[in-house]
């Protein structure tokens, strides 16, 4: 068989056709040309098929549907939207919903994942086992199941909005209570202690926590102080915990006043459910209602390309940026003083003032106050309507998707963090210990910064996965890009080719942007070898 690979032979015989295949100088080119031809033919074949199929169906490729009135409503929107807006805007609403859940999901997943990953390596037998169970359970069950389960748990366990309402019955009860002067027993301290439900789960849990806090405080105090002083210091957290039992936790720990026939007859004087956090946050089975910031003297706003621009928000951002820059200058100056004199001036209070005072002043000038969610009340004092008004309502579809995505991804991130930490040689932490660093600081200052280099590349792909997985939101009624463009819009317009191609393009762009950004970050923290 003739192999014309050697240079001498090739130059002797001039060009022959077989050299296209057997001469290494030409073979790569031949193969690439053949591959290019085949690839272009393949693309051409697909294009041709699309055109012929469209022809056969009498359709065309037309993105005009994006400018047609959408006609449907979306439960949760970041920028204004009504059913009179066009499909294009609905697509943007969906895209923003995708981005916001992906953004918060990545943050939450990272926080939980790092904590779990570090705790999994803890020398605490119980905690490391519990974290292993956590990781294995979340890793080995489909994400879709977690999303559905979290949603079902939230929506089945939280009170309905109606439970926050003040009904005529409640008002009657209150009137009856006001008429009833002698309140038996009262609700005093002794009452609460006497009615502690000793066998109940909350009490047992409280007691366990009490033991834990006391032991930990004793360990802490006895390592640092002697004798009575140690005992005194150790007693402080325990005392606080007892006080909390009698105040904050009292409703679940104590039985309350003994049953009184007269009182029992009156019935409930308060709504079945109450708001958290100084009566400002309401968690219903539909969503979480949080207070919304309101300004008495807003700076107004305008609209740019359909997106509202709020000058007040811009002002806050501008002040924040200026403060940060000023703070940086202060720190820089402190550093230069330290380098020239060896003494670092105390700057923390200056930083505090620079960072927060202008912002607080600005917000005061704008007249910031909070709009607390609540039911509108009619002139008799009875709540009306179906839902809490005012404030911001974060629907549970968002919350459930966020929690499920974060927990699921955190299990993977935990493994990545664990692997990253284990990749750092033991000598590093031993060296840190030899320098006298405490375990916490060793982790923070020595191990994690080095582990970061191992952690970041797989972390990027987890962020990408999380972002792509937001497309499962429709299972819990979250209208993201897949729910609007790939769901209702596709359904109503019947433009599956255009809608799906556009959707793929958008997801691809998001993915590429994320991986580009994270790769740049990776390059920044990478070990600079010279």
């Amino acid at each position, binding site marked *: 068989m003739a192999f014309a690979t050697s240079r001498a032979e090739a130059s002797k015989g001039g060009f022959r056709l077989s050299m296209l295949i057997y001469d290494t100088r030409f073979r790569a080119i031949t193969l690439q040309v053949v*591959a290019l031809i085949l690839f272009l033919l393949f693309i*051409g*074949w697909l*294009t*041709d098929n699309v055109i012929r*199929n469209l022809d056969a169906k009498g359709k065309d*490729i037309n993105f005009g549907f994006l*400018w047609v009135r959408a006609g449907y409503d979306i439960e949760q929107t970041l920028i204004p939207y009504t059913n009179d807006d066009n499909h294009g805007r609905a697509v943007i609403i969906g895209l923003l919903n995708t981005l916001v859940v992906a953004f918060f999901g990545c943050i939450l997943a990272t926080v939980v994942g790092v904590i779990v990953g570090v705790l999994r390596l803890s020398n605490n037998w*119980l905690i490391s086992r519990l974290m292993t169970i956590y990781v294995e359970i979340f890793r080995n069950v489909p994400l879709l199941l977690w999303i559905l389960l979290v949603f079902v748990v939230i929506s089945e366990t939280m009170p309905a909005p109606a439970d926050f309402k003040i009904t005529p019955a409640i008002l009657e009860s209150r009137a009856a209570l006001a008429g009833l002067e002698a309140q038996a027993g009262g609700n005093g301290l002794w009452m609460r202690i006497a009615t502690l439900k000793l066998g109940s789960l909350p009490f047992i849990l409280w007691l366990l926590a009490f033991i834990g806090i006391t032991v930990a405080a004793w360990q802490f105090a006895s390592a640092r102080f002697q004798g009575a002083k140690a005992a005194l210091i150790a007693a402080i957290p325990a005392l606080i915990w007892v006080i909390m039992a009698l105040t904050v936790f009292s409703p679940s720990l104590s039985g309350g006043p003994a049953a009184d026939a007269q009182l029992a007859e009156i019935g409930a004087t308060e709504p079945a459910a109450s708001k958290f956090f100084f009566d400002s946050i309401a968690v219903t089975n539909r969503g979480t209602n949080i207070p919304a910031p309101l300004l008495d003297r807003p700076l107004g706003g305008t609209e740019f390309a359909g997106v509202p621009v709020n000058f007040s928000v811009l002002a806050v951002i501008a002040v924040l940026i200026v403060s940060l820059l000023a703070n940086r200058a202060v720190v820089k100056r402190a550093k230069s003083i330290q380098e020239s004199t060896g003494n670092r001036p105390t700057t923390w209070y200056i930083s505090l003032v620079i960072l927060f005072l202008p912002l607080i002043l600005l917000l005061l000038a704008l007249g910031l106050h909070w709009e607390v969610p609540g039911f509108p009340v009619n002139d008799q004092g009875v709540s009306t309507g179906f839902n809490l008004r005012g404030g911001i309502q974060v629907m549970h579809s968002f919350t459930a998707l966020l929690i499920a995505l974060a927990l699921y991804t955190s299990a993977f991130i935990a493994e990545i963090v664990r692997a990253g930490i284990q990749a750092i040689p033991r000598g590093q932490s031993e060296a840190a210990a030899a320098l006298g660093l405490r375990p916490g600081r060793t982790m923070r200052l020595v191990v994690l910064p080095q582990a970061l280099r191992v952690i970041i590349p797989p972390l990027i792909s987890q962020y990408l996965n999380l972002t792509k997985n937001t497309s499962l939101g429709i299972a819990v009624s979250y209208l993201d890009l897949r729910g609007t463009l790939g769901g209702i819009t596709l359904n109503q317009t019947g433009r599956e080719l255009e809608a799906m191609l556009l959707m793929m393009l958008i*997801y691809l762009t998001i993915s590429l942007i994320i991986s580009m950004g994270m790769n740049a970050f990776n390059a920044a923290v990478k070990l600079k070898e010279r």
Partner: protein
Amino acid sequence: MSGTKTGASGPNNTALWLREEMLSPLPPPSREAGVTKWLRQNLLSSPVNTLLTFAGVVIALWMVWTAFPWWWHSVWNANSLAECRAIVAAAGGESGACWAVIKARWHQFIFGFYPPAEYWRPVLTGGLLFAALAPILYWNDRKGAHMVALSGIATLLSLFAISAGGAALTASLVIFAVIWALAIWRPKALIWVTGLFPFVAVWLIWGGSFWTPVSQLLAVAVGALIAWIYLKNTNRLLNDAFALVIALAAAWVAAVVIGYSDAISTDFFGKMRDVTFWQGYLSGSDNILARLFGMLASLVAMVVIAGIWLLLAVMYLASNLLNLNIADLGALFGKADMPAWSSLLSLGAALAFALVFVAARNRATLVGILAGILGGAAALGYLGPILVSALHAALPLTIVTVGSNMIGGFLLALIIGVTAIAASLPLGIMLALGRRSDMWLMKVLSVGFIEFIRGVPLITLLFTASLLLQYFLPPQTNFDLILRVIILAALFSAAYLAEVIRGGLAALPRGQYEAGDSLGLTYWQAQRLIIMPQALKISIPGIVSTFIGLFKDTTLVSFVGLLDPLRGVTNTVRADINWKGIYWEPYIFVGAIFFIICFGMSRYSMYLERKLKTDHR
């Protein structure tokens, strides 16, 4: 122990008193021994640890305590949810699990709507899958026989559990006995079982005539025979004859392809002139964005088409310049009405003929493989149906045909997962090699494909399978949704596998490549004999975790209307009036099965990882 005398009886002893026996050591203080020590070391070593421990206990206790009553009041025998609730209420419980729904519908969660009388078929297929995996996992090893025996026993037990018929039991027993005997006496021959498995599996699951897999196997045998004869033949004359036939076939294919691409481009240019088609892009509205978008889309399309057109034009020009009007070959291919193109056809065909003839005369392996594939496909396409009907007429060996719409539950998840992973392995290897290739174009194409697939969610690919494939395939091609989903799932996992295998390739020291070169091995020989065996071995854990991911992701097929166990079957069950309103139990059941399978696989891959690590060091 401590019984040795420490020099007390030595001759130079001057001490007044010396202890002759060592004291037995005191027991450690109580806090340094036993449970206390363990507790102090493992649970209470520092304030933070103490707090963590108690927090863990509190949380664990709270979770168990809250869920306990629900589990305690489990109901196993009931005909409807209402009945369940009545039983729980009668037992004095507030809420209780209604596992009766699982008892009533477990078969749908596992098999979908597969006919109950035929359950033995998927079960047997599952058992055979493990037998087929045995030679891959334990090549030429006694453990392979153990694995076959274990899977055989498991299969028979499962068949008992689903109360399969005697015939199915006997057949399974015989099949596994034969495979086991093979594994004992001829462990290497077990690989033939692996080769046969795909054909048998498809036949067992979808049913139909026994002669269908036989004819497919025959076609494969024909293809292999052609390739083998071609590659092993030493007769010069026969070789030339072979090369001639193959080159003629190549010329024919080239002519067809060129003719076809010509048809595409004329079609397309016709369309481009047709204003109404382009109006589509532009007529959306007065909005400037719409116009920009339309223009962008048309630009991309034009670049691609221009590429094809340019190639054709160059070839056309060359053929005219060279005046190579050899024969009106074009007429042979139904292109007689386009004489200008016929010369192009001739040129392309002649070029393909020459290149392939040279390669074929030199017995290039690739040509042999292609010849084998083409020959096999031709045998399957032209002779297969005739053979099947003839054999069927002579001896009708048929099992009930089961349509794809009957397949659901975990059976569906496993079919999609296993098939897609198996199919994606070769593609993944090719993509990984392409990504590391020196050839620019190969690299760009591989990277482009991988990044595209990894950049979009799986659900959009599933929608492509269900909504868009009808646009990208020739009109009136329409095939099974499950097959379409498998193809897209295979492409999806191929991109991920490519990255896994690329990692394996990157982990190999350069010396391995250089050693291959210094031995004078060609690229493919080096890949086959040196690189791939090592790279794949390193990649096994990654491949398994890709499979776990894909297996979990099969739950998404419910979005395109397939009966996955999580939403598909659960919704079907809930549509039944008796079970309306049941949520937790199906989810927990399905989740538990997923957990068992995925956890088992991840543990197995960790075991493999450890095993592979030791023989590396």
